């Protein structure tokens, strides 16, 4: 166990952890769906509405100044945290899904019929549909990196389908269904050598380890605040300035233009061009606070602690007869996707809930992965640094009971 990591005191930061579910203490193992929110982030939102709520930019009064400063300050925090070159390369969005749509829509007029897009076979819905919508317009071709038996991407096949027709390569950093960490360094490197642009979906990675975007040299990257101890309805899209400048915006509206008459519109500079309308101001500011919070704990500490949780949970769960873990590879985040022989995942989830344990069940918006394993869904327990060894013990014991009830 990592001694420098005081999980008990960290848990004090999360008001929801004192909640009872069916009279049992809440055991929250659905961190991959959304993270819980520390009190400093909640207070930050409260503070905003109590003290300086105001529309931002172009305001002449002090409140608007204060809100604008806080908003732009949050942009700088994202920039620093992910080691981004310039703050204008940080676009605030309503989340990962929105970010991806900005990129796919932006390229929809740039790509042509002969062009190809490569998507991994490990994707969340959000990563597939925008491209399917896009290729309806330009008839580009969508190609898929197949999975190996264990759920990892088949890199040999990736190299096979990559060609000079490939314009965009697109995948999640970590699979939400399995927790597998993809070899994005290698993928970015090979793709760049072939002249393809790479967009990485960091929705499932950013909360678990430190990410340096300049070092990765990735072209686009995105994550959602609500999986990073931040609030719902906000996320960011990073893009290299030169690329962002080439893309048309997804939405038109106030702030994203520098000049409007009825006959002509001139787009404003970055980042405004992509931030049409009044943004989620309190959300963005609280997102900045969440990043501060994660840095106070330290992502390296988080990574190490979560690794120990995963190891422990893995060893316990494997004691259970008939329990099968999917994507049980070396390089993964603290997430276990499993089934128990002859029992439906929905039944397991329903009964675990009665024990106070929140897991997700079903396809995890990743039907193609389920098809790959020939299953209908899994139980997904996703841990984070707010979880404990004791909770995993309780989980193990509850699973034993579930099994005896259901078989």
């Amino acid at each position, binding site marked *: 166990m990592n001694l420098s990591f005081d999980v008990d005191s960290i848990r004090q930061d999360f008001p929801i952890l004192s909640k009872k579910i*069916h009279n049992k203490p809440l055991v929250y193992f659905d961190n991959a769906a959304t993270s819980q929110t520390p009190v400093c982030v909640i207070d930050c939102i409260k503070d905003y509405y109590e003290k300086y709520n105001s529309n931002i930019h172009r305001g002449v009064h002090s409140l608007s100044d204060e809100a604008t400063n806080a908003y732009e300050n949050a942009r700088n925090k994202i920039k620093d945290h992910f080691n981004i070159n310039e703050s204008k390369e940080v676009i605030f969005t309503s989340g990962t899904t929105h970010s991806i749509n900005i990129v796919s829509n932006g390229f929809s007029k740039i790509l042509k019929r002969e062009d190809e897009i490569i998507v991994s076979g490990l994707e969340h819905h959000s990563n597939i549909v925008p491209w399917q919508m896009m290729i309806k317009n330009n008839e580009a071709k969508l190609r898929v990196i197949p999975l190996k038996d264990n759920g990892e991407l088949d890199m040999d096949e990736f190299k096979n389908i990559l060609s000079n027709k490939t314009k965009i390569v697109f995948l999640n950093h970590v699979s939400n269904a399995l927790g597998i960490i993809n070899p994005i360094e290698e993928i970015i490197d090979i793709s760049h050598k072939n002249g393809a642009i790479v967009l990485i979906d960091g929705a499932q990675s950013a909360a678990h380890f430190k990410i340096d975007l300049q070092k990765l040299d990735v072209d686009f990257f995105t994550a959602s605040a609500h999986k990073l101890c931040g609030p719902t309805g906000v996320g960011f899209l990073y893009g290299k300035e030169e690329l962002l400048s080439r893309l048309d915006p997804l939405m038109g509206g106030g702030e994203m233009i520098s000049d409007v008459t009825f006959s002509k519109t001139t787009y404003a500079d970055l980042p405004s061009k992509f931030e049409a309308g009044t943004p989620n101001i309190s959300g963005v500011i609280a997102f900045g606070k969440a990043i501060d919070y994660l840095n106070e704990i330290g992502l390296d500490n988080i990574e190490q602690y979560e690794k120990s949780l995963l190891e422990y949970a893995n060893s316990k769960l494997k004691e259970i007869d008939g329990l099968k873990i999917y994507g049980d590879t070396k390089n993964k985040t603290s997430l276990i996707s499993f089934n128990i022989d002859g029992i*439906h*995942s*929905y*039944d397991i989830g*329903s009964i675990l809930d*009665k024990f106070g344990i929140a897991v997700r069940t079903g396809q995890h918006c990743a039907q193609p992965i389920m098809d790959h394993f020939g299953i*209908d869904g899994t139980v997904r327990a996703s841990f984070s640094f707010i979880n404990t060894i004791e909770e995993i013990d309780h989980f193990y014991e509850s699973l034993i009971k579930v099994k005896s*009830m*259901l078989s």
Partner: protein
Amino acid sequence: MTIENAQKDIIDNFLFFDDWTQKYEYIIELSKDLESMNKELKSEDNLIKGCQSKVWLHAELVDGKINFLADSEAIITKGIISILLNIFNNRTPNEILSSNMDFIEKIGLKEHLSPNRANGLSSMYKQIKFYAIAFSKT
């Protein structure tokens, strides 16, 4: 027995149980009573949307009453279907249309009524009513 009486019976049955474990064990028991459904009937058409586990519901009008057949992959869902069919099977469309689902709350299964798409109970009931409407027009 009227729908109301059938619902009362179920409420009475559930009153016996002290804790949720017993309730769920009973539901699991009930799942075994469900008349089995032919593979062909488990078609795309009979699949109820909005349930996390797959649920199929098939209906036929026989002598003015609706015959339901249903199944699910999940055992708890199956048990709940079994309760529903105990109540709604072999009823006239009108009986079904004038019914309600208050008893679910009374037997402590309210969580299954949630609009949350994971829980299919409200979708199932909607579909049962949908058949009743369709058949009342024929």
